[in-house]
């Protein structure tokens, strides 16, 4: 009986820790709601946008998203592994190999947006160096969240790219990108980040501005699962299991609830391809996208011609 009691006690302790963290997260969100109320009172022209399933003033979304990612920054990879059973690593590998960075006679300048932890940037540099023998291609990692950037910077110090200066981290809003000059980028990548931006069309606009003619825009993002029975199964998994995993692993269920909800709210592959085309890009291939794992994720590619 004493032996049985120990694991139960441990589980309860973890549960309590989760509850405490949730309370703190809730408190933070409460503060945000108070602020938003105040903001709404003072500015009657405020527009609403969605934050997961909630509607919030447009100017508040950025702040709320920042909090979400600050909250999960340190446990980001562990949580991603748990949620996708490691498949997100395969998706990212496919994403980078499709782009084939470094396959060029001149050194490439690549911008990875919303890639603070460096997952995509390091894969790009590995591919360019090992697969294409290119030791001059450089990657700029831009992220709006300094906590994610600091994780990425710390990780980069363990790679050969830090000393050679081939990777750079800058704090940037994807909708503004004021530190990146016009027509200066060969390849623009954004993985699991565009759905968190308040104005997706503005992000696409900026992507178009910074790319050189012939430059490639590529986006890895969650999409709609097909066929229907599988979609329902995935939905149940998303809304019931993932927040629970968030509680257990990262001690933060509210942030992961937001992540699941934002996936649900993001447009489907065809609609998003149209948005990319409307921004001025020519879609790659016939449709402009390639689905992965029954549509859980999709790679969208466009070229600035």
């Amino acid at each position, binding site marked *: 009986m004493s032996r049985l009691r120990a694991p139960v006690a441990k589980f309860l302790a973890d549960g309590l820790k989760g509850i405490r963290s949730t309370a703190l997260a809730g408190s933070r969100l409460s503060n945000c709601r108070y602020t938003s109320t105040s903001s709404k009172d003072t500015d009657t022209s405020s527009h609403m946008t969605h934050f997961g399933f909630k509607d919030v003033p447009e100017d508040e979304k950025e702040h709320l998203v920042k909090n979400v990612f600050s909250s999960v920054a340190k446990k980001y990879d562990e949580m991603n592994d748990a949620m996708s059973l490691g498949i997100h690593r395969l998706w990212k590998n496919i994403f980078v190999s499709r782009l084939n960075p470094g396959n060029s006679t001149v050194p490439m300048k690549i911008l990875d947006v919303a890639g603070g932890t460096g997952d995509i940037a390091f894969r790009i540099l590995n591919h360019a160096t090992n697969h294409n023998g290119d030791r001059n291609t450089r990657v700029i990692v831009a992220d709006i969240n300094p906590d994610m950037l600091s994780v990425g910077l710390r990780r980069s110090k363990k790679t050969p790219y830090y000393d050679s200066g081939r990777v750079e981290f800058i704090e940037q809003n994807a909708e503004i990108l004021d530190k990146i000059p016009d027509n200066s980028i060969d*390849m623009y990548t954004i993985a699991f980040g565009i759905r968190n931006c308040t104005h997706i069309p503005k992000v696409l606009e900026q992507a178009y501005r910074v790319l050189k003619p*012939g430059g490639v825009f590529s986006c890895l993002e969650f999409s709609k699962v097909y066929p229907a029975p599988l979609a329902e199964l995935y939905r149940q998994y998303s809304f019931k299991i993932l927040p629970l995993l968030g509680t257990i692993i990262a001690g933060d269920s509210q942030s992961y609830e937001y992540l699941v909800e934002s996936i649900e709210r993001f447009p489907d592959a065809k609609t998003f391809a149209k948005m990319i085309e409307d921004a001025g890009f020519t879609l*790659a291939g016939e449709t402009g996208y390639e689905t992965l794992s029954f549509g859980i994720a999709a790679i969208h590619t466009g*070229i600035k*011609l």
Partner: protein
Amino acid sequence: MLTLRSACQLTTKNLGLHKCISKTVISALGRRGYHSENYETSKISGKKALILENALEHVPQLGFTEDAIVQGGQALGYSNLSKALFPSGPMDLISYFFLKQRYALSSLKPHLTTIPETSGRVVQLIWSRLQGNRDIVQHLPQMIAICTYPSNLRKSLSSLAELSDEILYLAQDKSADFQWYTKRAAISAIYSASELFMSRDTSPNFEATYNFVQHRIQHAKALNDLRNDVLEWGSFQLNAVRSILRSRGI
């Protein structure tokens, strides 16, 4: 049925393709409902088409390769065009080439009105299409090889079906029964065989290819006549049997 079986045999014999591919040809043909006079809106348009257009200028020298596409892009000022734009690479270029050649057949309409027989018009259309291969004849084996990759097969068979559809439409074939399918299958087979023949033809102005096309069309026509004769004979026999049975009071 004889014509259909014969078409399969033609395909198998002359192209060396496995029979299952013959079945794929026919099922691909069968999937199409009707031929529309209005061309489908092209999936390749704008600057993409421009790049492929420029790339085709380099095909006589470079063949259907990634290099030709890169050269096509450079002509428009894109120093380092990404492979992402044309994921299928050479097959995208070949598809565009097929599309362009098929559209060009329309210019033959005035000439076709002077030919009384449908089969004569079909010969001219196939010959005209083969003339489009004149400048790239040394790359035909490569093109055919790329078309038969498993990942490209669906696209190339679809193009072939559209071509035979176009040829019969321009030849003003009036079939509205099952014959329509057998004729399209036969034309697909004949065109494929002729194209393969052309890739090895060294005669002046490809005269041997022209004779090959004529011979194949006449052969297919004879088979079709035979089919009609057999059907007529069957019908006669059926009537005879019915008469005998009726005369016995049954």
